[in-house]
């Protein structure tokens, strides 16, 4: 295997064990120069561990890590050309913002004029100039995280690592800083690797998302691809809020072509784009609530009648719960078109928007 020179970060066959517990398993990941990669997954999936391995804060058990074409597997964190932003901000409480920003440079023995120049630049980009003489305790959460980002900024690094940087902020600030991080990325064009369990952050920020589970990357793709064509049931269920509907049933070879059957419901799959040659057997049919239409005529490839069970108004739109083949099924409608409880409705959708998974293995068909 050659050292990946054209990539910014390249992880090759990386494994990490804590005693008998395998946290990361022969993991490979190539990040292009200037790319924004989001590592997404539930807690305990190894995403933060992977980030710490890239940062050099954890020793790997197997494999190699390249940053800018240089093998940094055994390098100290400071020699890897990375800057890191932590969830708890991790600002040094006894130092002013300015000293916080300059700490790394002072440790490295950078000349004073150079330090002042870099701090001025970072403070300008992040708009924290008025805060420079304050201590972290006198800052709000959003300001603290800005300073934490600034600390990575002044080090003039190739790769930025974010470890759930917005998790400690309230919802409004989170949305604001999310946009700022995106702007920052556009301005700096640095490679960024961003760990989060928040799918909205992942969808909005990423060039590519790596969905992780059990120390293995399940799918690495552009956000839209991951959303529309998840490779397995885990990815399909993890992304999307409200979550995708799953209906268990069988794949049948009818005279006209393949169809999905669950109880007395038969869904023709003429428009479905199979990922691999179909074969009869148990499958799970998945479709997102917003891809189902309610009371909009019978022009759909598939439509059926159903009774509304519960209505959940969410402001901008409403989630309507009903039963499909005795299984819970949700439909997202605009709030003006909200039906009443127990109202009889017709739902319709195009199986082209659906996903089929092998029930046993969970992989996409």
């Amino acid at each position, binding site marked *: 295997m050659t050292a990946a020179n054209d990539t910014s970060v390249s992880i090759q066959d990386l494994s990490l064990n804590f005693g008998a517990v395998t946290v990361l398993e022969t993991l490979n990941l190539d990040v292009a120069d200037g790319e924004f990669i989001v590592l997404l997954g539930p807690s305990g999936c190894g995403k933060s561990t992977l980030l*710490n391995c890239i*940062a*050099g*804060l954890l020793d790997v058990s197997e494999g190699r890590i390249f940053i800018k074409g240089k093998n940094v597997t055994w390098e*100290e*964190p*400071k020699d890897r050309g*990375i*800057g*890191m932003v*932590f*969830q*708890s*901000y*991790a*600002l*040094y*409480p*006894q130092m002013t913002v300015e000293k916080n920003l300059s*700490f*790394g440079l002072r*440790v*490295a023995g950078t000349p004073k004029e150079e330090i002042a120049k870099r701090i001025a630049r970072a403070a300008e980009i992040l708009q924290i100039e008025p805060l420079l003489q304050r201590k972290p305790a006198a800052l709000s959460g959003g300001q603290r995280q800005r300073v934490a980002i600034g*600390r990575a900024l002044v*080090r003039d690094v190739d790769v930025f690592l974010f*470890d759930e940087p917005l998790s400690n902020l309230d919802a409004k600030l989170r949305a604001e800083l999310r946009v700022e991080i995106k702007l920052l990325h556009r301005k700096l064009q640095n490679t960024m690797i961003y760990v989060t369990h928040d799918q909205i952050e992942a969808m909005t920020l990423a060039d590519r998302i790596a969905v992780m589970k059990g120390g293995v990357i399940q799918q690495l793709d552009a956000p839209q691809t991951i959303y529309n064509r998840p490779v397995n049931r885990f990815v399909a269920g993890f992304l999307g809020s409200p979550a995708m509907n799953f209906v268990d049933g069988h794949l049948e070879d009818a005279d006209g072509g393949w169809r999905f059957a669950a109880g007395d419901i038969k869904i023709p799959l003429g428009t479905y784009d199979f990922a691999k040659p179909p074969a009869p057997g148990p499958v799970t049919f998945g479709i997102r609530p917003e891809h189902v239409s309610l009371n909009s005529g019978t022009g759909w490839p598939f439509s059926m009648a159903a009774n509304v069970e519960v209505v959940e108004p969410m402001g901008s739109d409403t989630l309507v719960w009903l039963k499909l083949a005795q299984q819970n099924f949700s439909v997202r409608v605009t709030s003006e078109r909200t039906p009443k409880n127990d109202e009889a409705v017709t739902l319709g959708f195009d199986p082209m928007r659906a996903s089929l998974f092998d029930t046993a293995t969970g992989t996409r068909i």
Partner: protein
Amino acid sequence: MSMADITAQASTAAGARQGITDPYGPKPRRVISRRNVFLYGTLFVMAVYYLLPLYVMVVTSLKGMPEIRLGNIFSPPLEITFEPWVKAWSTACTGLNCDGLSRGFWNSVRITVPSVLLSIAIASVNGYALANWRFKGADTFFIILIVGAFIPYQVMIYPIVIILREIGLYGSLSGLVIVHSIFGMPILTLLFRNYFSSMPEELFRAARVDGAGFWGIFLRIMLPMSLPIFVVAIILQVTGIWNDFLFGVVYTRPDTYPMTVQLNNIVNSVQGVKEYNVNMAATILTGLVPLIVYFISGKLFVRGIAAGAVKG
């Protein structure tokens, strides 16, 4: 109730308060309730219990011997004299030396100051290494250290006498300083380890990404944040070492005896008349240093204990 009613009621609430007889606002509390009598009564009794001996000591130390012989130990002095204090400090005899407690005081200072500094310097680095740099065998090392805290001192006295004799430090102040530093190590290391463990791990990681090494992180990040635990350690060590009697009497010679040993020799001398006033003054003088340390650092001490010592 309509909106108008609610606002109307809210605006008149203050004015209407006098007329309201059902519970409204803060619950009234009686000053003399059973709870208060019990609480303050207990506190008062405990305070008297602890302060009475101190009162007797102070009063006795300010009396002349004839007055003491009258036997009214609780009565205040008829004629205040500081003679016993002067005698206790500068002329009381122990063995062949007749220069009072002052010799012991300076010996104790010469023992306490280096012991406190040395033990805290080493233990803080120990605790930091154990908490933040999980080296191989760290847990084993820690367990051995903690077990050391539970072994009775008496078991180790004789072996240490031999060791000190072999390295030529037996009977010297530096020998005693080393002994105190070693025996302070388990509890101090535990204290510092727990304190540093309670600091956010991400702070340590951020410092590593910023390029600081073992000593850089310790001196520039951790130390400035650990004032409370250092105060606790200093108090523990100053009082512990100042009050030590056993090691002092075993590992030093009469001319290097610490204050506690000298106090014992003054108070327990069997010859001559028992000079109660001098004994009391000498005892208060000896206890003065830990007392002052507690008074100065009370608040910080409580804060530090809460921060570091309780969490396992």
